[in-house]
């Protein structure tokens, strides 16, 4: 009987499985081999390829009888010289757990836990760094400090399949919910590493390495899938490391290690480990001559080892009518058909496996936090209810002012963050200056007792009817040359006049785009003009919550170089710099203890004429002092309904908001999960929180939404609002 190989995972689309490439490589080595494609829906297009002698489509994983399927696989590999190549991660894991013998080419069960993200064992064995990661189910892991540290974009990855690059909390939570609902196995949030993508494909039998190649991606699809690559021999040291690791875990079958070589320092990071061949495996066979699938069934098969390149092409082939496979049609409105996105039905298998996994167990918060939450809850005489801790705020503002003074910074409170008169009064008393973006805010600053000389004016259009342009404001920043030209009157008595400069990398409509030489030169001309009455100043403002602190710091550094260019072109020395948007509640104390000093040093080194450095950490200081107390109305599976709404908690974008629930034994923070928290209004978008594990909550549970003291207050709107009563502490 001819050598026979069953190959599962045969889909050939924009996100292909490795089955077709594996089959093509085997056919290239063994003309008389019998190849049978296996998949779990008729949407698997690769089954129609003539490389397959036959095809088997079984029931989808949500309908399959596991024991019957196991018997089928066992029968398939019963004859001598018959093999099963799994091209599906979860199928491989399931087969491994059921141990059907050596001719089912999957590794021992423990290997699959070893290679699950983050695969520390593989990283250590191969001398690779690991990107920092956290789990969505860890309430303390996916917090502001993780985003502060690594910035956007981040990767949201399923345990076995699928990954999304996200650049904001809304996208992150949507990705967590989508992945958890699709796969049900928990989600990993991973640092993005900028660099070139590489891979190692390998084959091993019973722990013995039979071949390996290195591949560098030359072109990828929008999903990041390989479209062209350069294959070359794996260097000797890495081959030795790989062989030692595979022997240790008794690897059996194909595999792939995905790597990113960081641009900044060429350091290599482990991104993923797959317990199967990659979909580009036939590219290696074709370009490099190393036929790893063939080597698995016949170790005498060998090939060249020169470096060479491959590219993927798209072509059409006739459908094989004799297989009687009906491809599910595209649904109404262009939606994918039932098996459209995952034709091998892996989400269904994943959910079946996940059903056997225990739900995340939330842990109690520490005593200090619990005491604050209990006090907040005690003050809430009804729900929903807002509690603002003015005393705590006063302490924070005084401490920030003191530290700022020590290192040469001037803290400015952006009134828009929370224009509560009591807050403004506390800030003024603590020695802060004010930043206003409207005439009404200037009035609020005046009422709070700030003289004009302690008020900075910002915003994209300052022709406010309420504003007295003759006052000696501390600084006024024009958002554009057009705004300056359109001004009904110039702020001629302002101590400092200047422009807001647009971030160079991040997208923003605000500020002057000095990456354009004509605009750069125009700003220089206007600086000379403004110098007739006032000293020169410059402002950069961009929310670090949208790009991450590291990118924000890089933008500030770039801005300093740009101001140098402006000084040289205009002949004017900048005397005041205003920096905004780079501060989070958790990161502020670290900024003040370390980075702030570095910022001051950098400014003084680059721009020695600068006398004042203003910074605006309003959100960072105010948010932690506000809470909204709410109550669960009811729960429907993963959807929780509460008696508050988006109108009460509108700032769902800029902060990861911890949510706490009171239990008999104390307070716990809700861990991550696939749940969503809906407000009680009739607004379609009334989703107060996403990506939380809510399955343990029930009607009347008391919730506290933290970090609600900044824009949640100033952006609160009347439509569908509960009209929150506020407790003043």
């Amino acid at each position, binding site marked *: 009987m001819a050598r026979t190989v069953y190959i599962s995972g045969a889909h050939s689309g924009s996100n292909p499985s490795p089955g077709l490439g594996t089959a093509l490589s085997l056919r290239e080595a063994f003309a008389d081999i019998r190849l049978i494609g296996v998949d779990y829906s008729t949407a698997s297009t690769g089954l129609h390829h003539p490389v397959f002698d036959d095809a088997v489509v079984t029931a989808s994983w949500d309908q399959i009888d596991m024991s019957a399927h196991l018997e089928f696989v066992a029968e398939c590999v019963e004859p001598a010289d018959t093999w099963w190549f799994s091209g599906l991660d979860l199928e491989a894991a399931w087969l491994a757990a059921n141990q059907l013998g050596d001719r089912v080419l999957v590794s021992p069960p423990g290997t699959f836990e070893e290679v699950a993200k983050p695969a520390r064992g593989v990283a250590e064995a191969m001398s690779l760094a690991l990107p920092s990661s956290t789990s969505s189910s860890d309430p303390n892991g996916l917090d502001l400090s993780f985003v502060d540290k690594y910035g956007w974009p981040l990767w949201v990855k399923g345990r076995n399949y699928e990954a999304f690059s996200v650049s904001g909390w809304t996208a992150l939570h949507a990705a967590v919910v989508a992945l958890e609902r699709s796969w049900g196995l928990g989600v990993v949030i991973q640092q993005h590493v900028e660099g070139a993508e590489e891979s190692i494909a390998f084959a091993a039998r019973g722990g013995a390495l039979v071949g390996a190649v290195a591949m560098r991606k030359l072109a990828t699809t929008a999903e990041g899938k390989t479209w062209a690559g350069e294959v070359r021999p794996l260097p000797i040291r890495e081959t030795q490391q790989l062989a030692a690791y595979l022997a240790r875990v008794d690897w059996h079958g194909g595999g792939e290690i995905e790597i990113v070589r*960081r641009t900044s320092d*060429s350091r290599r990071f482990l991104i993923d480990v797959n317990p199967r061949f990659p979909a580009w495996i036939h590219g290696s066979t074709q370009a490099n001559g190393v036929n790893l699938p063939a080597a698995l069934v016949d170790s005498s098969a060998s090939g060249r080892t*020169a470096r060479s390149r491959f590219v993927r092409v798209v072509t059409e082939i006739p459908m094989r009518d004799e297989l009687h496979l009906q491809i599910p049609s595209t649904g109404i409105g262009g939606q994918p058909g039932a098996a459209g996105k995952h034709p091998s039905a892996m989400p269904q298998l994943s959910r079946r496996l996940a059903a056997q996994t225990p739900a995340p167990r939330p842990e109690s918060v520490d005593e200090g936090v619990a005491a604050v939450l209990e006090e907040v809850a005690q003050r809430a005489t009804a729900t929903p209810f807002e509690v603002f801790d003015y005393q705590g705020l006063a302490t924070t503002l005084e401490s920030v002012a003191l530290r700022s003074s020590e290192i040469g910074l001037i803290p400015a409170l952006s009134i828009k963050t929370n224009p509560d008169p009591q807050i403004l009064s506390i800030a003024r008393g603590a020695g802060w200056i004010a930043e206003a973006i409207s005439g009404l805010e200037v009035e609020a600053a005046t009422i709070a007792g700030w003289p004009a000389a302690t008020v900075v004016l910002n915003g994209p259009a300052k022709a406010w009817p309420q504003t007295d342009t003759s006052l000696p404001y501390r600084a006024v920043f024009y958002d554009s040359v057009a705004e300056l030209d359109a001004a009904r009157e110039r702020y001629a008595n302002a101590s400092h006049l200047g422009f807001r400069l647009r971030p160079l*990398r991040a997208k923003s409509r605000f500020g002057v785009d000095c990456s354009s030489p004509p605009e*750069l030169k125009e700003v220089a001309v206007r600086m000379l003009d403004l110098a007739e009455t006032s000293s020169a100043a410059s402002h950069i403002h961009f929310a670090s919550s949208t790009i991450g602190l*590291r990118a924000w710091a890089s*933008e500030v550094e770039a801005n300093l170089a740009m101001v140098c*260019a402006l000084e040289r072109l205009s002949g004017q020395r900048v005397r005041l710099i205003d920096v905004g948007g780079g501060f989070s509640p958790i990161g502020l104390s670290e900024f003040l203890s370390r980075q702030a000093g570095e910022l001051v040093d950098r400014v003084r080194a680059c721009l020695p004429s600068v006398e004042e450095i203003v910074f605006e950490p309003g959100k960072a200081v105010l948010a932690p002092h506000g809470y909204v107390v709410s109550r669960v109305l009811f729960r429907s599976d993963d959807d929780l309904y509460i008696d508050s709404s988006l109108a009460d908690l509108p700032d769902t974008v800029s902060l990861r908001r911890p949510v706490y629930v009171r239990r008999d034994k104390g307070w716990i923070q809700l861990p991550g999960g696939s749940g969503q928290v809906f407000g009680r209004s009739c607004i379609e978008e009334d989703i107060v929180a996403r990506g939380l594990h809510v399955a343990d909550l029930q009607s009347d549970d008391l919730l506290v939404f933290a970090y609600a003291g900044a824009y949640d207050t100033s952006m609160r709107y009347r439509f569908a609002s509960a009209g929150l009563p506020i407790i003043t502490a």
Partner: protein
Amino acid sequence: MDLHPSEISSHGGACCEAAQDWLVALATSANPDGGASPHWIGQHIEWGPVVWPTFWCRLLDSPEGDCGVHAAVAAYTCKTLGATVRRVQLMLDYPRQEVAHWNRTWERSDSITRWTDGTQCYHETVALGEAAIQIPDASEPIIWTGRQDGIVALRIVDPDGEGTVDWEARDVLLNEWIALDAD
């Protein structure tokens, strides 16, 4: 061939220093992870003919330049960002029709045209790294890896250095033209 890597001239005053600051600002912003990739340059300085000698301040009047301008900008900004930078000269093999197109474009300007010869083209970029180097292109977002990229020969220029550097697992002698054989 004894061509020296292209150098952009300076008027020695604020006009050229401002242009250099502008370029450093763009480079800093494009490398938020602390690296020194030059791949941003082609987005801000359009590739095309330029009249040599050229000056830094001309980049503010007309942000255009050939590979020599791109490589000189890369060398300046990458060094300012803290990277170890060496200039790289390459001879590349290109399809005849593509070269003919470039010849015609350059002939229409007042620029030098002797950077092509048949199917071969002279090109410049930079190498980053100390003992082990990468050769990113300063005009396009690609990294040069060897003969399969169309490289016929290259020279890594380091006036103060000698010996070899490791490029893609090859030992490459500094300051010498090296012909690349097919692997």
